[in-house]
């Protein structure tokens, strides 16, 4: 709470308009917050994960890229195991 610069991923559970501004409710592992979605309003859908900084979603987490990074990590890890043996 109050930490401005830590970006935190959360899941969008509701999207609505507030006097012309796209706002939403984002769930952070149980804690819910009102978040401005204006910067990602083109793509944001309920169920998406967003990276949130101080009440503003600055990006949506790309599922495919998240999985690709994990695969790459696994590969790097496996190589590390082999080299260590």
């Amino acid at each position, binding site marked *: *709470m109050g930490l401005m610069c830590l970006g935190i991923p959360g899941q969008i559970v509701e999207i609505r308009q507030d006097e012309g501004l796209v706002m939403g409710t984002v769930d952070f592992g149980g804690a819910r917050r009102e978040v401005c979605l204006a910067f990602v309003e083109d793509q944001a859908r309920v169920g998406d994960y967003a990276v949130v900084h101080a009440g503003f979603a600055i990006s949506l987490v790309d599922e495919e890229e998240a999985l690709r990074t994990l695969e790459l990590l696994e590969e790097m890890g496996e190589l*590390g195991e082999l080299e260590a043996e």
Partner: protein
Amino acid sequence: MKHLSEYRDPALARSLVRRIRETVTRPRVLMEICGGQTHTLIRQGIDEVLEGAVEMIHGPGCPVCVTPVEQIDRALHLASDPRVILTSYGDMLRVPGTRGDLLQVRARGGDVRVVYSPLDALALARKNPDREVVFFAVGFETTAPGNAMAVWRAKELGVANFSVLVSQVTVPPALRLILEAPGNRVEGVLAAGHVCTVMGWGEYEPLAEEFRVPVVVTGFEPLDLLQGIAMAVEALEEGRWGVENQYARSVRREGTPRARELMEQVFRRVDRAWRGVGVIPTSGLGLRPELAAFDAEVKFGLEGIRAQESPECRAGEVLQGRLKPPQCPAFGARCTPEHPLGAPMVSAEGACAAYYGAGRRSGQSSGGPTAMGSLGGRGAQGPARENAP
């Protein structure tokens, strides 16, 4: 939380550490920019498990820490004004100015309120039309779009009793200052994943080219950092430089266009002082002149408030990676989180607070339980940061 626990897997971390150790042919020196990354590195003991292979130098990326004492003094002045409700992110409240901090002003009757979002400050202004509501707009490129939005909305909705005290800074000019400094030891850079989420990485390409350094856009989880470090040392060993993106699940080349556009509409580049460092040319953002009605410095005539830094606090050297916190004579003695001399000991993202909080008082290994400590078979996973928005 999806895709979070995976990025904290200790077994995978151990093999990445081995891979990094196998890759380097001599000790390498990398700098992480962001204070959030510094905290993960120190708290998880990543710097310790890489000792002898990779030295991590901590960069200037703690927004609370780099806010100059002058701007703190201006905030203190505003908070003491009975007309004003001063609103701020929570982490600014204990940062010492020349005379005390915002919490002390509040204890003396000043109306100081913590908000989660600058839009909350704007809402407060609409609810209190007879008061002046000022938001202390600090931070890097991650907070700039939100702070820009608050000003833009105030203009759209005609909220005349809202203004901002701006102390926004940007990373690339500070990185240039570090890389071109005589005696610079930084061979590779981990760029801050969320700054690049907003801005993209176009600004880092000329820097990587000019200084021939690999720059890896990196995330914040332990495995993100280890992968970023692995990518940087592989580039170094192969003699490559340029920008690579480890944090592809959040960062696109062009950043977040709508956020960048609004920043352009509201802010312009200005020279700005960094605490302990001095003025870095074009390193700051200030409100465009046509938005001067929302600029608290203009509205309340604050330009006359000038201040000197504490001579005992060596924050400037810490922020530029020239001094590790435990090497400062005041660290842990004259300077603690309870009685800080400077901001890096206050902020959750400050390097001094990171070392102090991890029990690293002497610059020696803590031996305490950390997630990476499980590399040695002890400890558990790190704190669940996702639960503390």
